[in-house]
Every structure is written in C-alpha cells, then in structure tokens.
C-alpha cells in the first residue's frame, strides 16, 4: 500500500509592498508614535552603518559587517520583544542592539576591537555577538528551556542568516526546540547570500521557512523589507511562545545590499544588477511612502530625524574613541571568576616585560 500521509504548506506574509501599498486589514494596531519609532530606528541603524563603513576605511575600526537593507528585519523584530525576553544575535544585528538599548558607542568600540564594547548593560537583555555561524542557536533554545522550567513568562529570540541553516547546530536547535516546546523564536534573515554562496546553492529547500515543518512546528516566510510584516509575525510568534505553545521559525526574505563584510568584495561573485533591483525594495523608503500617505511624514520631520541620527552617531564615535586603553594586565581578568596561579604568574611576566 502506498498513500499520502502528510501534506504541507508554507505561509508568506507581506503587508506593505515596495510601493508603499498597504494591506490595511493586516496592519498591526500601531500608535502613530510606534510607526515613527520604527522609522527613526531604521534611520539610526543606517546612519550607524554608514559611519562604521567610513571609520573602517580610515582604519579607525576593524572588519565590519554592514546591516544595510536588513533594517526592517531587525527593527521590526526588536520592537516586538518585551523587556524580559532574551535576544541572541549573530554578528550583523547592529539594529537589534541599538533598538534594544545597547549604547551605540559600545558597538563602535567592539568593532574597533575592544572587548569592553561587548559589556552589555545589566538592564539590556541581549547576548554578546556570536561570530561562529550557527553556534548560538542552541544557547537560545537552552535559555528558552530554562525560562520554561523556571516558569518565567518570557521567550528568547535568535537571529541568524541563510548560511547558518546549513550548520548542524541549526538542525539540532530546531529539533530540541520542537521536542521541548521551547519558547523560542528563530529569526532567519535570509539575505540570499552567505559570503559568495547564493541561497540557491546553500539548500535545495524552496524556502527556509519550510524547514520548521520537519521539526514539528510552524515556519513562515515574511517579506523582510516590510517592517509591518516582520513585526506582525514576530509579535505573534512571541505571544505564542510566551503562552506555552512552542517555537516558530520566521524567515525574513531580504537582501544583503553591502559586501559581506569590509574584507569582502561582492563585485567579484555577484551581479551588480541584482543589487540594483533590491535597492528599489528598500525597507526605509517603503515605510516613508506609507507615512507620507498617512500624513505622518514631512520634509521637516525627515530632516530632524536625519540630523538627530547623525548627532547621536558622531557623539557615539567621540565617546568610543575617547575611551582610554586598558592596562596591559587586564587581558588576564576575564578567564575565570578568580585568576588561577598560572594566570597571576603570566600577568606578572607581561607587566615585567613591558617595563
């Protein structure tokens, strides 16, 4: 006997299209101030990004991974999160950090290669940057399991790219999350490239979203350049998680406008015309079009927002660069709660050698 024992579908959500046209019945119930907040944080993220790229070219920071084009994925999700939820970013989530309340100067310090930049304030519920692709996914699932065991009404949210879905850690995390019904929201920013590898060569699945089906929970693809759709999907998934109904995978379909990092040269492997197509789908322009229609936007407002963003950014750079260097011996301080005898001896050795 042979018969069909399962049939699957994948959902797609778009609310605001690239022309600013809006599917009104699906728009989240936003206050005007919330819409402005979305816009302002996307602008701030982009201003930060532009500045970081400049600083890198001047040698004032090191290798940097740009967020350009992915602002809606990051700001839309970050708006949906509550104070007690814990976020696990990968390495491209500058917007998430900013929206969550990480002081901007710290981000500049981090990218300049100063560990103090990743000292996250106690009241900011964020994990440090994770450079190894995919490795932080199990941490997010574990934290979600922990919240569940401790009966906390909180969820976790983990960011990663399309490339990360190839790592074993992704699959193990999805499976654990399904098995333990962990209150976790997986947010894959499918920007269609993992350095030089296009997503079509990364996986044979038609979508990333459908991978959730195999692990027994829901996956959805959203237009990742549509901040309303991202917010909507993420806030629904977080509500579901917090009410004990388990994990969700959200694939934000978007595009990496910049090079992979400042060490990369995308021209080498990627057609510029593809980038042009995606620039037209810009998440910020789209929201602006919507706000114009709704009378929430004026030239004066735009100018104010831009000026304010630039001011915040330049003050952050100043503050970051004014930071005094650490004392040499400090590099030994964070390996254990208490320095071991070996570390004490090596610290002395370094200090002695510096004289």
């Amino acid at each position, binding site marked *: 006997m042979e018969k069909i024992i399962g049939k699957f579908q994948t959902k797609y959500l778009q609310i605001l299209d690239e022309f600013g046209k809006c599917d009104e019945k699906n728009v989240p119930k936003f206050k005007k101030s919330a819409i402005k907040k979305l816009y302002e944080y996307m602008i701030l993220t982009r201003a930060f990004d532009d500045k970081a790229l400049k600083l890198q070219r001047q040698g004032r920071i*090191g*290798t940097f991974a740009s967020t350009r084009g992915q602002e809606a994925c990051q700001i839309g999700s970050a708006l949906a999160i509550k104070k007690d939820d814990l976020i696990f970013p990968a*390495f491209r989530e500058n917007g998430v950090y900013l929206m969550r309340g990480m002081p901007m100067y710290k981000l500049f310090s981090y990218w*300049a*290669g*100063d*560990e103090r930049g990743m000292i996250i304030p106690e009241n900011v519920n964020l994990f440090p*940057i994770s*450079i*190894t*692709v*995919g*490795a932080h996914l199990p941490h997010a699932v574990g934290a979600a399991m922990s919240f569940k065991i401790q009966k906390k009404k909180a969820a976790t949210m983990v960011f990663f790219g399309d*490339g*990360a879905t*190839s*790592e*074993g*850690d992704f699959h193990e995390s999805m499976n654990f999350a399904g098995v333990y019904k962990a209150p976790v929201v997986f947010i894959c920013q499918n920007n269609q490239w*993992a*350095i*030089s*590898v296009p997503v079509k*060569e*990364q*996986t044979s699945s038609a979508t990333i979203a459908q991978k959730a089906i195999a692990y027994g929970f829901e996956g959805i693809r959203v237009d990742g350049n549509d901040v309303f759709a991202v917010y909507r999907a993420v806030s629904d998934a977080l509500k579901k998680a917090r009410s004990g109904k388990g994990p969700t995978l959200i694939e934000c379909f978007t595009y990496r406008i910049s090079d992979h990092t400042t*060490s*990369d040269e995308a021209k*080498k*492997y990627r057609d510029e015309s593809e980038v042009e197509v995606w620039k037209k789908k810009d998440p910020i322009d789209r929201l602006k079009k919507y706000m114009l229609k709704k009378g929430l936007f004026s030239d004066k407002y735009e100018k104010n927002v831009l000026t304010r963003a630039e001011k915040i950014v330049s003050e952050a750079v100043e503050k970051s660069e004014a930071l005094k*260097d*650490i004392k*040499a011996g400090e*590099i*030994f301080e964070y*390996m254990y709660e208490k320095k*071991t005898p*070996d*570390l004490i001896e*090596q610290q002395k050795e*370094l200090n002695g*050698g510096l004289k």
Partner: protein
Amino acid sequence: MAKLNLVEAINLALKQEMKKDGKIVLIGEDIGEDGGVFRVTEGLAKLYGNERVMDSPLAESGILGTSIGMAATGLKPISEVQFEGFLMPAFDQLISHASRIRNRSRGRFTAPMVLRCPIGGGIKALEHHSDSPEAYLIHTPGLKVVIPSNPYNAKGLMISAIRDPDPVIFFEPKKIYRAIKMEVPEKEYTVPIGKAHVVKKGDDVTIITYGAWVKTVREAVEKMSDVSVEIVDLRTLSPLDTTTIINSVKKTGKCVIVNEAQRTGGFAAEIIARINEKAFFNLEAPVERVTGYDIVVPLRKFENLYLPTHQKIINAVDKVMKNSGK
C-alpha cells in the same frame, strides 16, 4: 622562476597537482568563484570546473565528513576551512574519524585527504580568527600536521601533503600570507613531511619555531649581535623531526621555543619533554618558551599584548645565556 607569496605558492601547487591528478577535488566555503577569502584557490574553479572545485554549504562537519567519504572511495579531497576557529564544528570528523578510518578498518579504508586551514593571529581580526589550535590536532594519533614558513616550503609541503596516503592538516600562517615574496620554482618539487629545517646555523642557542614565527625569530636574531643563534623551522609538527631538534640542542646546549598558541599543554611543552628525554645531560640551562598566554586571544586593539615579540624572544635568549653562566 617567479617571485611568489605564500598564497600564490599554494595556489600554484594546487593548480599543478590538479592538472596531473584528476582525482583531486577541492571543497570548502567560498573557494569557487570567490577564490577563498584569502584567494588561495583563485582561478581554480574556472580552470577545473565546479565539480572539482566545490563551493560547499556552510557546514564544516559536512565538509570534513564528506571528504572522508570521498577519500575512502578513490578521490583525493583537499578541503578548506575558512578560519581555524571554525575547525571546531568539524572536530568529531577529524578526531574521531579522519584519524581512525585506517586503524578501524585495519587498512581496508583510508583517508588520503588534505585539510587546508589558515592559522594564527597578527592580522587584527574578529574573535575566532586569531587562534592557534595546532596542539589539539598534534595530540591526535592518525593525523599529520604541517605548517609552512615561506612560499618555497609552502609549495613543496603542499605537494607532499597531497601525495601522502594519510590525512594531513595543512596550516597556513595567515600573518605571512602576503608578507614574504621569494623565488618559487615553476617545476615540481617536494619538501618532505617529517623533516625540520635548520634555517640558520649557530653555536650558542637553538631557537625552535614554526610557521609565521620563523620570520619574526629571524628578525629578532638579527638584533642580537653577541649571540650565535641556530634557528630550527619545524615545518612538520606531526610526525615531529626529533633528530634535528636533538642534534641542534646537543650542539648548543641551550634552547628557546617560540610559538604563539596558549602555553599550557602547548606544543612547546612536547618539545621540552623530548629534549628532556634525549638531551638532558647536554643542557647548560633550562629550556625557555616564548608563547601566548593562557587566555582568549584579545581582539584587534590589544592583540599585540598577547603575541610573542622581538623583545620577548631576545629576553628569553638572554635568560638562557645568563642561566648557562655565559
């Protein structure tokens, strides 16, 4: 003869061996059209096609695990892991399988494969891009570990690695990827695996080092006018050329080891143990080691505090000289 850097020399070795041996395939992240993030495989996809130069999905365990399968069934895979910090997801395949397939099957299946991987700090990079994990691999029986120190031995060692019947880890010191240009013969030659090289002869102190540090040690030695230093470049870390080490130490009676990995359980300790076993009575002073500290390598801004320096090397030489009473 052309003057090449390390990147170009390895590229040349790959290109020539691939031309000779159709069983060689390359697999790794971004090694195709992009030519690898350090451009070591530049142009090879164009020359040999995507079937022999495979841009893999982003999965190191997948890369190494499938390499074992390919190697066991007639191909010669040369894989690339983009940075040493990303070897860790592949450790199960390396430590538990690549190294053991021969033993487990009593020789019926083997894994003649090469894993290429950049190693070490000094390029002011992000976390996991400045590490030196060689000791984990040297500690694993069944793996060979080599590390060139210049473009000439890079090409020769790569050809030996490709032709070796066992799994070879080929570490590429990224600090010197483009820092040294030298004449590299176009014609085929090999540098044998398992043989150290005395880079500079001397009588007072032996400095043992490898990879990027051969260059730094040479520079430091040039600053020391009053001591005659012999420099040994190990080139292969496993199997180790104990004979060359012992002969040199017996001659000089003093030894300093320079490597950048964390100190505890590091490779310098193994070398000291062998000197202790085979040349203890020739020693005129305790062996010194200049290594990294037992900490996570600091990021860009403070990385230099961690790494060996000319001064640290000179201080160590001074110390053994003083301890020997000379």
